[in-house]
């Protein structure tokens, strides 16, 4: 799971709008039209993926540098994972081990 490589979706294009000093941004999927509110962490993840595909270790390493020292490692990891799931569900990002992951799960989430 550590080696799972994430990348921006090839099936759709993600757009977003953010505001200084506000933690919430709005994300828009160009093809599907899905529009949701996401956290600043999601935007940071997307910015990293715009540069290159990343695995979770790389996310953690980059993002922990911008975090306050009081943020616990585990809490950040959890937050990264949950944001990745949300972004994947809306179709903004994908990963290379999807087949194996879904095959092993009992119920696949709505794509």
């Amino acid at each position, binding site marked *: 799971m550590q080696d799972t490589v994430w990348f921006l979706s090839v099936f759709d294009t993600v*757009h977003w*709008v953010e*505001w200084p000093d*506000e933690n*919430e*941004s*709005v994300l*828009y999927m*160009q093809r599907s*039209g899905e*529009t949701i*509110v996401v956290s600043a962490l999601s935007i940071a993840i997307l910015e990293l993926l715009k540069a290159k595909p990343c695995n979770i270790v790389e996310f953690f390493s980059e993002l922990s540098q911008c975090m306050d020292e009081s943020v616990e490692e585990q809490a950040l990891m959890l937050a990264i994972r949950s944001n990745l799931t949300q972004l994947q569900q809306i179709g903004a990002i994908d990963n290379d081990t999807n087949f194996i992951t879904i095959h092993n799960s009992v119920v696949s989430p709505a794509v």
Partner: protein
Amino acid sequence: MTLISSLSTTQLYRQLSNNGLTIEIGPFSIHACSTIESLTEHFKLMYSDYRVVTEPFADFHINLKRPNGFRHLLYPQVIFYSDIEKPFKPLPLNQTNPFFEWGLNWCIATMAHQYLIIHAAVVAKGQNALLLPGHPGAGKSTLCAALIHRGWRLLSDEMALIDPLTCSVTPVPRPVSIKNASIDVIKGFAPEAVFGPVIKDTHKGTVTHIKAPESSTQQKTDKAIIRWVVFPEYHSGSMLEISRPNHAQVFMDLVGQTFNFGTLGLTAFQTLENIVNQTDIMKFRYSVLEEAIDWFDTFQP
């Protein structure tokens, strides 16, 4: 240039019930056809200052007809046609006038995709527009009806037609729909307003329409740029309260109020982004109409 007012009631009825009449409403030419007499009265009263179109092209073709069959004798009804389409179930015959207005809203919202269309009242001071997005029960229609009788120009009471490139609003001044308790409130607030007949037991309760002031119809080609977006909330007994919501919340609220957000795709997203970033946005709670109007009076571009 022929205005509706230059036609006698008989002439108007004859035209509407034979080949129909095309009338200019904002940027649109509406071809209307009906043998139902109340519609003639509605046009005579509410659309007297509007131009009769002689060009043979109409943007929308509206027909209001009584259904056939003997059931109609027991329960008189009216059907709305948009060209050959019947988008709605029939309504009682006495709701013909509001049916025309509701149906025209539907036509614009489902076909005029050259605009981003937000469910909102829009009024303006000069070229500066105030957008009042409309959650049901928020009081936007009441506010709109009051503001246009206190120096603000009516662009629309229901749908903001926004040019995606410039974020300007195109006026489509039409009769302002108000309902239930608001009717008496506005009668008291603006006794000079021209009211249509009051119709009870519609799906919205008791409704009536107020004629758009002549100044608004005269300036029907003057676009305005959105300067303020105010989400009104009528709350009985509350003090006047202004707050500034966060941008993401505003954005999503506007998405929810945009009729053709899905249809316009990325253009819609980018237009809303511009609106959210370039306007003064507030949430506003009120209970006393005079207070609310006085507050809006303080708006300077």
